[in-house]
């Protein structure tokens, strides 16, 4: 019944997910050899640079702890600026990893298998960067444990009505579940590395990490069950975490912060920014580590389609907010939006609009969706745009509040910039360690989507 045209028309045929002349053994080899061969010199160069930047973060945070948040450019009325912008930026990036690993799994999207491992690792590292902001933005990180409801002799408890409190719980839940999900997925591959180990040390380390995995029928059955349950648990987390982040703003009465579309709009933006980061990381990685046959152009194209779709959702939210600000007939509401687009921060607003709404439009064309340079450039634009989006929301809404005499303008200090730049160092260092020491593609899952897996 299958018509021959099915195989011919590229618009209709199902793409082969693993290209080239690969079998199970060659897939294992391709992925495992990355962590088994001696470390390439280039890796040291990149890691050195990333670690240097991470050092900048350590110095910035050290000085912050020493001196207090006065070293940042915060002022009245702008009490939140780059710190919360950086926090929301990093939490958002994490969402793509969970979407790929959990939601696309529930949707039976087989193409996720070669990118989910690296995307999940990205999630963990991004959430760590976000958590660091939670810890430091109060200026007294040694009291960070006050976030945790510990019985104490003063009888003082957290304000559970504060969204900032919910945020702390949401993020920790998210990090914990993502870590478990990532680790469970890693176990069969860690066992593969153990079995291939040529030295005693590797054998012991990977042996311990793979928790006695022997690939028995019963192991696989438990593994599949656990994987499905964790995917089910992670799915609502994709929505809940960024929803609660949006509550940080939307539960207030500040025009520009308080609007009902924030929860889904933030989630869409998070996925949008996260996919851009996945592209930024994986486009060079597939090139340098010889993974082009596993992470194919089709994978890149699919991710670009998601970037286009979520970019349009974000654009919808921008326009709906603007329309309702006018429709509401509320002078303060409408002023906030006019001020965003035409006030002192118009450069930030239009940067955001160009990067997030205009730049992904090139992905309407297959030629650009499948072009590596275009993919990379748009991904960079989107990452920049998503940073601006958070800055525009946070900064422009509060820099001109109800009293014109209290209006102000935010200028970052060198410490604002170095702290944020430093988080990139932390993030990239961790990611480079990951690609060096752990299998960056889920070997066992990729095998499951190859034609060889369906022999019956």
């Amino acid at each position: 019944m299958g018509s021959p045209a099915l195989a011919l028309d590229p618009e209709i045929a199902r793409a082969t997910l693993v290209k080239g002349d690969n079998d199970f053994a060659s897939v294992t080899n391709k992925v495992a050899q990355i962590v088994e061969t001696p470390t390439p010199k280039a890796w040291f160069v990149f890691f050195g640079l990333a670690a240097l930047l991470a050092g900048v973060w350590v110095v910035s945070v050290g000085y912050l702890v020493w001196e207090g948040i006065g070293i940042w450019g915060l002022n009245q009325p702008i009490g939140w600026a780059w710190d919360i912008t950086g926090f929301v930026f990093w939490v958002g990036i994490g969402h793509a990893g969970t979407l790929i690993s959990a939601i696309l799994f529930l949707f039976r999207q087989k193409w996720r298998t070669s990118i989910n491992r690296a995307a999940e690792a990205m999630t963990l590292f991004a959430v760590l960067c976000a958590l660091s902001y939670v810890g430091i933005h109060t200026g007294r990180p040694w009291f960070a444990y006050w976030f945790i409801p510990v019985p104490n002799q003063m009888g003082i408890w957290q304000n559970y009505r504060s969204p900032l409190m919910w945020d702390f719980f949401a993020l920790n839940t998210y990090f914990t579940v993502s870590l478990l999900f990532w680790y469970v997925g890693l176990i069969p591959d860690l066992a593969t590395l153990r079995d291939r180990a040529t030295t005693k040390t590797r054998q012991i380390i990977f042996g311990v990490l793979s928790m006695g995995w022997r690939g028995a029928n019963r192991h696989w059955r438990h593994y599949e069950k656990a994987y499905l349950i964790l995917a089910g648990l992670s799915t609502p987390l994709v929505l809940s975490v960024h929803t609660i982040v949006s509550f940080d703003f939307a539960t207030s009465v500040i025009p520009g912060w308080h609007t009902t579309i924030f929860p889904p709009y933030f989630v869409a933006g998070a996925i949008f920014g996260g996919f851009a980061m996945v592209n930024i990381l994986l486009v060079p990685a597939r090139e340098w580590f010889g993974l082009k046959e596993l992470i194919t152009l089709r994978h890149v194209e699919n991710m670009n389609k998601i970037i286009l779709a979520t970019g349009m959702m974000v654009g919808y939210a921008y326009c709906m907010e603007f329309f309702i600000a006018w429709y509401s007939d509320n002078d303060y509401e409408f002023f906030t939006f006019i001020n965003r687009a035409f006030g002192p921060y118009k450069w930030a607003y239009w940067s955001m609009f160009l990067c997030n709404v205009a730049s992904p439009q090139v992905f309407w064309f297959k030629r650009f969706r499948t072009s590596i340079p275009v993919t990379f450039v748009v991904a960079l634009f989107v990452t920049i745009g998503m940073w601006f989006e958070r800055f525009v929301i946070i900064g422009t809404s509060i820099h001109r509040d109800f009293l014109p005499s209290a209006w102000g303008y935010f200028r970052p200090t060198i410490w604002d910039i170095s702290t944020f730049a430093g988080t990139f160092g932390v993030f990239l260092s961790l990611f480079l360690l990951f690609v060096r020491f752990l299998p960056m593609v889920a070997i066992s899952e990729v095998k499951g989507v190859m034609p060889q897996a369906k022999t019956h």
Partner: protein
Amino acid sequence: MAHAPKTLNPADLTLPDPTFVKLRNMALGAALVGLVLTGVGAAQAHGQFFFSYLIGFFFWLTIALGGLFFVLVQHLTRSGWSVVVRRLAEAIASTLPFFAVLFLPIIAFGMHDLYSWTHEGHVSASKAKYLNTPFFIVRALIYFGVWSFASWRLRSFSYTQDQTGDPALTAKAQGFAPGATLLFALTVSFAGIDWIMSLQPHWFSTIFGVYIFAGSAIAIFSTLSLCCIMLMRLPAFEHVITEEHLHMIGKFLFGFTVFWAYIAFSQFMLIWYANIPEETEFFLHRFHNGWENVSALLLFGQFILAFLILLPRGSKRTPGLLAFGAIWQLVFHYVDLFWLVAPMRKLDAHSTEFAPAGIAIGDIGALLLVGGIFAFLVVRKLKSAALVPHKDPRLEESLMAVN
């Protein structure tokens, strides 16, 4: 695993005459009963009848719009599993142009009763630039134009393919879907704002369009479940639409149930927490005068109990249970729309006081009238061609689909 028959015979895949006649007569009967009740309701309702009509109209419209959404998304995502059920959604979406006709009574007679912004000086001059009758009609024409065109175009690709078997038509539908989806999102949002949100012209909520969309997604997956279960009883469909397809539709129904709750909660939570009078107005109407019971009913019916009903794997794979869940969700989708519209009913045409919670005869009349016409159009469309796009290049994938 489903075992596909060797060949599908297109002649078997049409709606059998007895079934067609039965369904058609039921639809016409419902419309007739609806017409009588509508007449009684209109006579009794003291100028408040058009609220009933708007609820009935919008209920069936959201199903038709859901049908268009379903077809769009299948092409947008190059979906394979859904081929055998797509024709149903195509037929449901084919009713969209007729809704423009069904909207005429509202424009001709209902504007003044329904929309207080049509009264002189009720909204500010700046808002009247958007909320005024001529522009309202122009926008409605655009919405119906977009929906009718999109549903016709996608349907014609699919029906032509039944004749020619040309796989290029599938590629064309895939090329058409993204832009159409964009227009769909905008038109549905603004139709929701125009027709429902502007019933309280001073109230506003940026998430409202998404809320309307979420409801229509629940509506279509419920309706599709019921249609599939009906078709499965025909012998020719034994191995065509299987429990695997029910399972997938059921999962979407479950997913969109949660999505609806998420959107509804986001809207409520943010307005309740910030407690700004011009926004709380919306919920204030729905927390007094008996409407608090309807609000609670909606929370427990459309979300909490629906969640528990649809969560187990078995209730998505057992036709009887899924039918129960689908009817449940359709009932509560109606409650949802009722909850959105009916609290704005006045005691009578001259009163400024809002009527307490309660059902009018006109509510049932309009539901049956529009529903009967809608069902008649769908059944007629289903009879006009095969019930399965049997030359779709992804048919085999759909027949062999497993969860």
